[in-house]
């Protein structure tokens, strides 16, 4: 990697580690329900204790996502939100003083159509540190990772409880952090995690020197606490998107949008407690 400036993501994980803390990583879908709300949420969630934010690019066929995030995608697509808007909103947040790292979550086809080279170049410009592509497994990832490396963008891999002997190889090619999928299934709130989840996390831990984060179904403060002792980061997605969905009446009107944003920020603060 030729970038002399340390990737914002690496710096954040390093700092948290030295403080003995775990990163809280909320996920939101860009443009749900409006791009201005996304900007306010980026700033507000940072104030409320988010250590990193996953920016979901809306997609027509989100096959790794459950109904909550699928509906958020559909709402954003009604506003014609594109990959370009996702880059721009990050840039605007930076202009308004946002400091925490961002990681883009997008299906592969939007990347393929936009052009990986162009995307990563513009991600550098928007100061987005990494990218998660849920339908780009190790076998298909090499060309993308090579381009990402040139721009010091981390292509963050996913490992699942079904990965077994693949964990080693995936971890070897990992960048930024390793995203551990908590259980079988799509994103969304769930009542239980994979049996032996701690053992799975331990396996990933021994396979890599990178930070590890857990996601899929992490939905309340108790879950966050439970996994904080095993992971360097905890991703909360559908639970936050569901809060957004519940606050839609507030968020959709410019007069009350700020109240809606505060409501979601309160939820983020509660996750930290």
């Amino acid at each position, binding site marked *: 990697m030729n970038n002399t400036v340390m990737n914002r993501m690496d710096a954040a994980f390093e700092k948290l580690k030295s403080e003995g803390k775990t990163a809280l990583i909320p996920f939101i879908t860009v443009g749900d329900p409006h791009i201005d709300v996304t900007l306010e949420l980026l700033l507000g969630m940072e104030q409320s204790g988010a250590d990193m934010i996953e920016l979901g690019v809306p997609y027509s066929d989100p096959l790794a996502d459950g109904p909550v995030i699928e509906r958020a995608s559909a709402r954003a697509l009604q506003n014609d939100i594109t990959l370009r808007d996702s880059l721009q909103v990050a840039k605007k947040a930076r202009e308004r003083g946002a400091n925490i790292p961002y990681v883009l979550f997008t299906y592969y*086809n939007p990347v393929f159509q936009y052009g990986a080279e162009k995307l990563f170049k513009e991600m550098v410009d928007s100061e987005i540190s990494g990218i998660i592509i849920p339908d780009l497994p190790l076998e298909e990832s090499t060309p993308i990772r090579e381009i990402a490396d040139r721009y010091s963008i981390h292509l963050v891999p996913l490992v699942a409880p079904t990965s077994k002997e693949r964990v080693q190889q995936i971890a070897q090619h990992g960048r930024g952090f390793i995203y551990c999928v908590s259980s*079988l299934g799509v994103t969304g709130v769930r009542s239980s995690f994979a049996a032996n989840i701690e053992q799975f996390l331990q396996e990933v831990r021994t396979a890599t020197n990178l930070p590890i984060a857990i996601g899929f179904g992490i939905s309340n403060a108790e879950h966050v606490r439970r996994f904080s002792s095993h992971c360097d980061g905890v991703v909360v997605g559908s639970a936050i998107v569901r809060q957004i969905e519940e606050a839609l009446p507030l968020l959709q009107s410019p007069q009350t949008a700020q109240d809606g944003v505060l409501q979601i920020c309160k939820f983020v603060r509660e996750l930290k407690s």
Partner: protein
Amino acid sequence: MSIQEQVYRYPDANGRYGQFGGKYVPETLMNALIELEQAYETYRNDEQFQAEYKQLLQSYSGRPTSLYYAERMTKELCGAKIYLKREDLNHTGAHKINNTIGQALLAKRMGKKKVIAETGAGQHGVATATVCALLGLECKVFMGEEDMRRQRLNVFRMELLGAEVVPVISGTRTLKDAGNEALRYWVSNVTDTFYILGSVVGPHPYPMIVRDFQRIIGDETKRQIQELEGRLPDVCVAAVGGGSNAMGMFYPFINDLSVNLVGVEAAGRGVDTKEHAATMTLGTPGVFQGSLSYLLQDEFGQVQPAHSISAGLDYPGVGPEHAHLHASGRATYAPITDNEALDALQFMCRTEGIIPALESSHAVAQAIKLAPTMRQDELLVICLSGRGDKDVGTIMEVLGGNKHE
């Protein structure tokens, strides 16, 4: 190297057909796909497995299906001699069962007792429900709500056969969304569930497995036309949604370069409108439901809804091997509109006494265009992939067939 100079050997070790194909799925599914690939490698060369598959095709589904000389149709069109490969005569009324028998046997060999499938027109769903009943497997079929409305009869058939039909209410509520939902369900239940995918689409190894189980169509056709005419056909025409009957017909002929392979896709209300499913004619390369192929999409890679009067062709993607045959020029692909398909359907009813499925009617429509441009000593084979009984309701709606009410 051009395709003419080498023996056709696809997919390669990475599941690619030229640039197309691959395995674009969540990591959770990767080991399941690898396991499926290994199991298939074992059983494709296993004599006992192949014998059981062939035996069920023969005694249960009624194969070989006939290659029928459509004499009246030939005479009306004053051109090439037309043969129909009668896949509509299969048990359950379409070619789909060739594949479901194969995959269900594979599921059983792999020790999986639960099966899921996606369906558009309902033919694949019915064929899956049928073999699951036969082999004692538990069966769930995902079907778009819109398609359930269009194909009520098939929904009931599946339920009668003991399958659970799961309505899909996401997206456009058609085949593409049924496919998404089946994949989502599979991600959650991958350890004990076998996904019987119904077309030559999806991640590797599915396009290969489905093609191999459907190649019986082309293999039989090749043998039968040799027996009847002493030579290979000049043209083979088949409808393409995902493309399984077409791939099954084309594959055994790929190295026979004298045989023109013509895929027919649904142009819906016309390729100059937004309501079509003409993936080859108007699509661009993109990744969708696990593989890189042609796709109807916007400039940001959002998948665009497809339209066709035929639920089985109403799909914005197409199998990666077809994409490769298109890109390499080995096969050509032509669009046929809803109206052309309806006209062809009625033409076939009146000349041959056969009601073709709306899907197959697209192939018939293209043959009606091609035959008069060919010499009378030339041979044209239409893959009549399914029978039209399931479509009678739709056809009545469109043609206003309630004359006697």
